[in-house]
């Protein structure tokens, strides 16, 4: 009070020092800023998840590579015989489907539990809830990236002729996956906090989606059965094509592939925001 002449200058800096808005500000800008401000927290939680996952296991991180690879070899032998496909061609197809679908499934199921598992944090500190779903997605993304190396190596050894300029577009799948999985996980997190049956129901839904999408089965199988719509109008197919077109066919992914993928991003984001508007504040009561 005695140094009133300085107070106006001091006050100018005050908003940076004290952060009252992060607690009460629910505007979208404040929300996103809250996520950014908590970045150290969710990044470290993600790394902690990964460490916990591989702690005290002999192969550790290599399990993320071994597991899908082993299953792929098994499946491609069986499916290759059934559909008379060349194993060397069919295996990377299955592998690409498997690791990408695994990412979607683990993000969806993990997302539906993410707020429930973070309850002790949510009850103690006010952070945007989306940081907890982001933590889940980030963990799964790192697993996905590790698993992808086996796909890259496989293709480079068996189909080196596919290597070309189109490959520079492959990394675009990473932000797309995050932008799809994050709102999805958040949305399911809101619902999962309210209805604890969600993970079970989700298992069923995801199994059904897997079944009607060209994840392990090639698009030509669907087309052969006259089920063009399950390929052409299926965002999962288009998302997979962003990886598959360059790596497996040596071609650029089409604008349609990107169009459908961004469409999915838009729909899921909109849903998450709409549900979040009322659910974000209520989640704490359901924990």
């Amino acid at each position, binding site marked *: 009070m005695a140094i009133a002449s300085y107070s106006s200058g001091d006050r100018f800096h005050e908003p940076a020092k*004290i*952060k*009252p808005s992060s*607690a*009460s500000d629910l505007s979208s800008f404040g929300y996103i800023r809250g996520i950014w*401000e*908590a970045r*150290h*927290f969710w990044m*470290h*939680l993600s790394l*902690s998840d990964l*460490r*916990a996952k591989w*702690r005290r296991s002999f192969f550790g991180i290599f399990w993320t590579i071994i597991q899908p690879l082993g299953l792929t070899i098994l499946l491609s032998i069986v499916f290759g015989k059934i559909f008379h496909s060349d194993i060397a061609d069919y295996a990377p197809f299955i592998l690409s489907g498997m690791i990408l679908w695994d990412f979607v499934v683990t993000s969806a199921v993990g997302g539906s539990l993410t707020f429930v598992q973070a309850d*002790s*944090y*949510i*009850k*103690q*500190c*006010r*952070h945007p809830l989306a940081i907890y779903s982001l933590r889940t997605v980030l963990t799964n993304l790192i697993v996905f990236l590790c698993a992808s190396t086996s796909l890259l190596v496989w293709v480079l050894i068996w189909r080196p002729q596919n290597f070309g300029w189109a490959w520079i577009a492959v990394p675009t799948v990473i932000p797309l996956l995050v932008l799809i999985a994050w709102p999805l996980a958040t949305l399911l997190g809101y619902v999962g906090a*309210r*209805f*604890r*049956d*969600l993970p079970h*129901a989700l298992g069923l839904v995801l199994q059904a989606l897997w079944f009607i999408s060209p994840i392990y089965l090639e698009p030509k199988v669907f087309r052969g059965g006259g089920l063009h719509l399950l390929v052409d109008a299926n965002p999962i197919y288009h998302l997979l094509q962003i990886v598959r077109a360059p790596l497996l066919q040596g071609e650029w992914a089409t604008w349609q592939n990107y169009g459908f993928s961004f469409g999915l991003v838009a729909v899921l984001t909109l849903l998450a925001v709409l549900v979040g508007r009322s659910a974000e*504040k*209520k989640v*704490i*009561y*359901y924990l």
Partner: protein
Amino acid sequence: MNRISLNNVDLHYHSAAFRERSLKSLLAGAVTGKKIRQGQIHHIHALKGVSVEIKAGERVGLLGHNGAGKSTFLKMVAGLYPISGGERIVEGRIRSLFDLSLGFEPDASGRENILYRGLLLGMSPKKMREIEDEVVRFADLGEFIDYPIKTYSAGMQVRLAFAVSTAVEGDVLLLDEVIGAGDAAFITKAQNRIRALIEKSEILVLASHDFASLKSMCDRGLVFHHGEIVFDGSIEASIAQYKYINGLG
């Protein structure tokens, strides 16, 4: 300026949160058209028209019977619970100590958890590295600090949580009956630390049933009764009022 300004604040616990917990019961209710036999469960009106102004430098004690709304009040001020009516303005960085033993990553070591909790409280990794040694020393867990949290006893978890949470300063300090965790030696140490933390904070709001600590730490009291503030005055008068309302003589 740090302050808490509440104007006619209402807070309801939505009954859906503890009524239908599964899709099955919701659907069953919708299909049969019957209310599931749960007795009469309504929204809980936990805070009723609470208006209070707390300015920088004030030390406020909350009194009230169990379920009177003290903890809800603290969590509402912390911004954890959304208010259903009125106006809530809290300026200043909030430091709250509730449910101390919660919020550990069980597979991570004590040292790692110090970092995570610090980050949860809004610290930077750099700052946490600086204070880590001090926290480890205060928690005094010996070699266990490098063991996973799941090997800790409940008391050890509280010690670690307390050591981290109180190492981080804030402008508005919200305490909910945290004093009294751990063994006798630790309690003395903890009380000294709480006092130091209180001295550094601009505003203290403490919920407690311990009149002695209320008297020594607070100068203003709020008496809660069934979700309402029924008395606001000096801490001595508040304690007397609390005893009178609850028939404690």
